[in-house]
């Protein structure tokens, strides 16, 4: 082949090889951008910051968002269309569970109360607030244009195995749907799946 022609074709081939790679890098949102998108959601609560309240590692951690949420949605499609329908409208499901000793109960309860007040100041609506001697429950909902954009559930119970559970569901939520689906599912400990 002519040398000059070869020289002109080689860089073109290089470019054609590089462009698809660059396109993939640009098309797939980097993790930081995905995190930023979730933080922009009005119904989002950063549960990672709650870990500072506890000395122990969480016994339960659920972070279903982004690509994993889409995969989970597809995985449920064949067997539970109602669950799929709900998941399609969600942006994230996050759960943290921490052991809670009786000694920690009051302190964590106070911090939870402060967090709840801050949520209210930011427009979250109180749905349930239960205070008993050994149990505290807070359920908050964030509305956006007459639709529910986020749900936060905080449950405290002095239990050294499963004391405190914090749940944040982000996206368009139908509480009635959660209630119907929840009756079908099992909430035995998840350790068997690990």
């Amino acid at each position: 082949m002519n040398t000059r022609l070869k020289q002109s074709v080689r860089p073109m081939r290089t470019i054609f090889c590089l462009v698809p790679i660059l396109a993939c890098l640009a098309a797939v949102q980097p993790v930081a951008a995905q995190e930023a998108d979730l933080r922009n959601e009005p119904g989002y609560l950063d549960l990672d910051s709650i870990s500072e309240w506890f000395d122990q590692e969480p016994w339960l951690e659920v972070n279903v968002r982004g690509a994993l949420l889409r995969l989970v949605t597809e995985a449920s499609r064949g067997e539970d269309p109602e669950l799929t329908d709900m998941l399609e409208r969600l942006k994230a499901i996050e759960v943290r569970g921490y052991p809670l000793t009786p000694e920690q109960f009051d302190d964590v309860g106070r911090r939870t109360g402060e967090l709840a007040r801050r949520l209210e100041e930011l427009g979250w609506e109180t749905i349930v607030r239960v205070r008993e001697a050994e149990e505290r429950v807070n359920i908050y909902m964030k509305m956006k244009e007459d639709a529910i954009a986020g749900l936060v559930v905080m449950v405290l119970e002095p239990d050294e195995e499963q004391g405190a559970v914090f749940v944040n569901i982000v996206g368009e939520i139908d509480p009635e749907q959660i209630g119907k689906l929840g009756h079908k599912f099992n909430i035995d400990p998840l350790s068997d799946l690990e």
Partner: protein
Amino acid sequence: MEMSEFRSKDGDRSISVEVRWAEARLEAFIDGTLPDEEARRVEYLIERDAGLREQARLAMVIREHMADLAAPPCPPEVVQTVLATAAREATLRDLRPHSAPSGLAAVTGWLQQLRKPMLRPALAIGFAAALLVAVALVLRLDGRRVDSPSPVLAERTEAARPTTPYGTEPSNPAASGTTDVEHPTLSEDVARTNDTTDSEPAIAARIGPHASEDDGPVPQTESTPNAESTHDASYTSREVEQALEKTRWAIAFVSEVGKEAGESIRKDVLRDRVTRPIRRVLDTALAEESTG
């Protein structure tokens, strides 16, 4: 309300999950490529589940039949055609003029190069990739125009902030509707306990976007990496299945909490503070009506 008293609503759910897990590994089990522990588990499940046992039997039958199939020979005319094409292309390359093209001829020559079969896929891929880049850039630019991001909830401990007794009704009950984006005063640095000057512990919860740059740097709390994190863009089927089970668990938990909270409210609040007083008032009014 006892969290520990939650019970399974569907006793067969765990078995069907196991069976689906085994189905995904059936072919590897038949081929003998599963790790020992997984193979034992699959074998155990095959013994317990008739449907799975039937699938395993079918897979083995198919495997045996496939092994008996002979590889078809390549037709002789295919070999001849491939060799002839290669020879022709080699001849065409050798016959090209050796003088360097210039100007329009060079461009024309380059375009003719692009029409070569080898470069056509590259050209198509390049064009598609450029289109993807443009679409991705447009989408990302649109995504950055957030309608109503809620302000960051990040609060430094304030010495002047009064400690509200836990459970006191907030003075300003939450207003419904969209959050007010223009609340920069709510965007403050996340405080660590060792930075506080007050005994009140710092609240480090974030809601919405990061603090604006005007409010100073905001320490980031990294999401805890785990198998389900978006840091890993590829997930195994087992991870997806685990995530699905955790999702179901979360939904069931929220549902159960809501139900038991409702029962508690009905029993402890409504019955004593609403229903009974109303009934007493009605009884009194009806009694007076009947005597009057």
